[in-house]
């Protein structure tokens, strides 16, 4: 390789290495600020090394699994509330609006809203998260023991 090419090779590789280092350091510094949402544990225990907790009234997103049996619907309106959990702490979400089709108990969701108190959120938007597993219903039944039932759109009066 002639000296000029060698020089250019070093220059281009050098720029690339320095830049990756720079971007890497930047992303590391941003770290949890890039996260889309708080998990229930982060909301309650605080975020990052200095355990910074969000303040009441702050707009934020919360993401977690809908606790089984925690969905309570209002009979006369679209108001609904449910609990979210990840590894321990439970956070309650209140919402007034239409839930996405994939919303169900045990499903991961992301809600955006304001913090009412340490563990309660008034959501303005609820999004459903789904995982990276795809399979036909009969396989899901055999593998996971999940019987596929389309989510209920109406609930009879008297259901909690």
């Amino acid at each position: 390789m002639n000296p000029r090419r060698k020089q250019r090779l070093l220059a281009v590789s050098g720029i690339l290495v320095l830049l990756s280092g720079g971007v890497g350091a930047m992303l590391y510094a941003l770290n949890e600020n890039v996260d889309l949402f708080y998990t229930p544990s982060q909301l309650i225990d605080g975020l990052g090394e200095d355990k910074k907790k969000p303040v009441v009234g702050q707009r934020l997103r919360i993401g977690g699994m809908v606790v089984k049996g925690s969905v309570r619907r209002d009979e006369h309106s679209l108001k609904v509330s449910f609990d979210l959990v990840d590894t321990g702490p439970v956070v309650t979400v209140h919402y007034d609006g239409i839930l996405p089709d994939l919303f169900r108990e045990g499903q991961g969701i992301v809600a955006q809203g304001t913090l009412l108190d340490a563990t309660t959120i008034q959501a303005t938007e609820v999004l459903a998260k789904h995982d990276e597993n795809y399979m036909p219903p009969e396989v899901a039944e055999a593998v996971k023991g999940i019987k596929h039932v389309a989510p209920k759109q109406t609930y009879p009066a008297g259901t909690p």
Partner: protein
Amino acid sequence: MFKWLDPYAKPQVLFATLLWWQRWLMPLSIVVLLLGTVWGLGFTPADYQQGDSYRIIHVHVPAAIWSMGVYAWMAIAAFIALVWQVKTAQWAIGAIAPIGAVYTLIALFTGAAWGKPMWGTWWVWDARLTSELILLFLFLGVMALQNAFADRQTGDKAAAVLAVVGVVNLPIIHYSVEWWNTLHQGATITKFAKPSMDPSMLWPLLICILGFALLFGALTCLRLRTAILQHEAHRPWVRQYVQEQQHATV
């Protein structure tokens, strides 16, 4: 080590080679894409959770994977163009960039169309979606920069630098769903583990991924050939080629 590659730096030799590849890749890519999409969109079973909506994966995932793959190839061409100053590599950057931009657009559009019924929103500023949008801007930036200078050489060089520098975004896109929490789910097939997809759905997806790759190859051959003709228009071999073409069509 790479001495065998030297002849291909010559536009005339590369032109003939690309023509040969294009003749194979173009029909093959169409057949493979048709097979994959018809099988995937029409004949795979519905998903246990998402029903029929998940079928768009057969367009979304190949486009998204190859938006990054195309970028990687463009960056390799840019690297060669910068270090070895091979003309044909410089032209390849301009030939590849629009293909990548369209793949990225397809990935973003099908993602939005899939997100609305499943997540409940067209768009969310999470790490995966945002970094993929940046990829689109990188492609557009490379295209704009290459044509932004009165002097073609300056434009080629500037575009090559941007293309190489933008490589940093590729690992960010890929690992965004692992490093941060996002609305977008984790990887289904591009990971060192068994794909989390039933074989009946996986096969058409793999065929579609292959189809998008072949189409990228075919389009690159086509566009790079055009670029070679444009840049070499004053050379005798091009004039001779054009004359032969005219005789062939008469």
